[in-house]
C-alpha cells in the first residue's frame, strides 16, 4: 500500500463521535496501514475511534469556545511542517470540516479535493471520486504533487463499521500562534427544537419543492410526513425562498439522505437536489412536468398537480389509520 498514513478529522458532540467520522474511518483503514484521528475533543473519544480502526488520537487542546477551523488547521499544518504529517487528511463535508480544509489548503499550498463519495488509488496516489450533474457522471481527481492530500468526503459515502480495535492512544497536538485568524469565538449555542425523526436517520423522508406554489402549502408535506412517521425535507429552492429553515435542505448543500423511501413533492430534480437523495432505496415523485429530471430516478412517478394528489393521499392515509 502506497498510502501509509491517513489522518481523519474526528468531530464529536458531548463525547459521542459523529457518524460521518466513523464512516470515513471505515474507508480510511481499508486504504492505509495507519489511521489516526485529529480532534478538538480529547481522550473521551479514544475508545470509540479505536473501535473503528484508529490507533491514535491527536488531541488539539485549548480550543474551548473557539471556532475550530483555524486552530485545527494550524495544528495539522504545524505537524506537517515538522515532518510528522500523514499522506492524506480526510474530513467530512461538515461546517467544521470545510473550515479546516480551506485553511489547511492555504497553509500547505495544496488544493482540496471536494465532494468526494469514494476514494481510490491512481498511480500510487489517493484519488477522489466526485459525482457531477446530479450524479449522472463521476469524475476521479488526483493530486499532481506529493503534498499532503486534503479530501472533503460527503456524508453517507461509506458504511460505519467497527473493526474491534482497542482504545486509541492519545497524544497532544499543539496549536501554533494564530494571530488574528484565531480570534473568532463562540459566545452561545442555540439548539432548534425539532420533533419527529431527523432527516439523517428517518426511514422515510417527504420533501417539498417550488411546485408547492407557496409557503403555506408546505403544510401538506408536514402532514404527510407526520402520517408516515417521516422526516420533512426540502429542496434548495424553497429554503432559499425562506419557506423552511436551512436544516430541512436535502441536496448537495444540506443533507445527504438515504432512506428506505423518499417522496419528492413538487420537486423538479435539479442536480443540487438529486445528489442528496439519489441513494434512497425507493423514490416516489409527484410533479406536473412529465419531463422533470426527478422522474428519471423515480420508482413511481405521478405526473400531476401536488395540490390535488397530496390532499387525496393524506385523506386516504388518514382513513386507514
Amino acid at each position, binding site marked *: 500500500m502506497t498510502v501509509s498514513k491517513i489522518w481523519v478529522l474526528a468531530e464529536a458532540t458531548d463525547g459521542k463521535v459523529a457518524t460521518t467520522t466513523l464512516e470515513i474511518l471505515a474507508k480510511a483503514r481499508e486504504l492505509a496501514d495507519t489511521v489516526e484521528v485529529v480532534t478538538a475533543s480529547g481522550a473521551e473519544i479514544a475508545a470509540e475511534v479505536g473501535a473503528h480502526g484508529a490507533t491514535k488520537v491527536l488531541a488539539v487542546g485549548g480550543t474551548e469556545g473557539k471556532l475550530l477551523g483555524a486552530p485545527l488547521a494550524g495544528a495539522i499544518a504545524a505537524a506537517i511542517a515538522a515532518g510528522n504529517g500523514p499522506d492524506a487528511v480526510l474530513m467530512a463535508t461538515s461546517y467544521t470540516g470545510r473550515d479546516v480544509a480551506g485553511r489547511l*489548503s492555504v497553509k500547505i499550498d495544496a488544493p*482540496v479535493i471536494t465532494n468526494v463519495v469514494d476514494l481510490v488509488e491512481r498511480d500510487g496516489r489517493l484519488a477522489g471520486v466526485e459525482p457531477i450533474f446530479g450524479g449522472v457522471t463521476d469524475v476521479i481527481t488526483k493530486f499532481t504533487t506529493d503534498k499532503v492530500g486534503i479530501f472533503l468526503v460527503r456524508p453517507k459515502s461509506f458504511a460505519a463499521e467497527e473493526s474491534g480495535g482497542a482504545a486509541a492512544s492519545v497524544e497532544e497536538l499543539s496549536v501554533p500562534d494564530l494571530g488574528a485568524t484565531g480570534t473568532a469565538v463562540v459566545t452561545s449555542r442555540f439548539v432548534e427544537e425539532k420533533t419527529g425523526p431527523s432527516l439523517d436517520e428517518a426511514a422515510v423522508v417527504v420533501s417539498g419543492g417550488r411546485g408547492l406554489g407557496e409557503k403555506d402549502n408546505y403544510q401538506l408535506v408536514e402532514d404527510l410526513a407526520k402520517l408516515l412517521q417521516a422526516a420533512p425535507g426540502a429542496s434548495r429552492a424553497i429554503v432559499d425562498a425562506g419557506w423552511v429553515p436551512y436544516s430541512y435542505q436535502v441536496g448537495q448543500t444540506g443533507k445527504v439522505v438515504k432512506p428506505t423511501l423518499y417522496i419528492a413533492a413538487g420537486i423538479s430534480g435539479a442536480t443540487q437536489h438529486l445528489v442528496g437523495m439519489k441513494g434512497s432505496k425507493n423514490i416516489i415523485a409527484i410533479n406536473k412536468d412529465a419531463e422533470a429530471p426527478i422522474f428519471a430516478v423515480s420508482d413511481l412517478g405521478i405526473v400531476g398537480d401536488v395540490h390535488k394528489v397530496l390532499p387525496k393521499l393524506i385523506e386516504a392515509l388518514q382513513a386507514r389509520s
Partner: protein
Amino acid sequence: MANLVAESEFLLSVLSEPQSQGMLLGMNVVVCVKQIPDPADPGALDPQTNTLKRDGKLILDESDSYGVEMALQLVDTAGGGEVTLVSMAPNGEVSGLRTALAMGAAKAVLVSDPALAGSDALGTSKVLAKAIQRAGEADLILTATESSDGYTGVVPEQIAELLQLPSITFAKEITIEGNTLKVQRQTEAGYDEVESPLPAVVSVTAGVVEPRYPSFKGIMAAKSKPVDQVTVADLGIDPSAVGWAGGGQEIVEVAQAEARAGGTIVEDDGEGFQKIVDLLAELKVI
C-alpha cells in the same frame, strides 16, 4: 506564489483599521461574487479539459445576491461607506456584475484573464485575495457559502487564511457593534452566536435576506459605475500559478455513474394517489 504569505502581512496594513468604537463612520464591505452559466441550462464538461464549460452568457450566481443584499444593508445601518464587488472571469464578462451594481454596489474589480481558465478553488482564492486588496480598505469581506456551479465551498476560508483574517462561515445574520462582528452561524443542531474583531471574512447562507430587485434607476446607474478590469499579472501573480498549470490536481477519469433503473411513470387521472398508497403498502411503510 511563494511570496503570497509574506505579502499577506503587507495586506494587513492595507486593510483598514477598524472604525473607532461607537462612532458610526460607515463601513466598507467587499463582496466576492461569481458569474456563472445559467443553472437552468444543462451543464456540460469541456471534452478537452474535463472541467465545467463556462462559455455561454453568464449571470450573477443567485447565492451571491444574498451577500450583496447583506452588504448593502450593513452599509446602510453604518450610515456610510460603500460596497465593492470582486469577481473573476476568463473572458471579461460583466453582465452578472452589472446586476449587483444595479442593486446598489458602488464599484467592482474584475480580474479577467485567459490564464484563469481551469483555476481550482485555491487558485481562485489567491486571485480573489489579491483583488480584495486592490479594492481598497475593507472592514468586512462577504462571500456566499459556495458557488452554484462548482460547489467546493472552501473558498471563503482560503481567502481568510490568505489575508490572515478571522472568518465565520455559514452566517444567517450579521450585526456590527463597534469593532466587533457578531454572527449567527448555522450549525447541525441550530445556530451559534460567534464573534470576532473586524476586519473579517464571512460567508453568507442563502435565503437569509431578501435580495432587492434592481430599480430602473439602479439599472441605468449601473451602466456607468466603475469596473476596474485587471489581469492576473496586474495583481502581481505569476499567470502560471493559476489556471490549469497552477492547479495541483488533475482529473484522471470521467465515467458514467451507475444509473437507477427507470420506474413506472403515470399521468394523474384523479386516482394517482392510490398508486402511491399501494406502493406504501407494498413497502410496508403503512
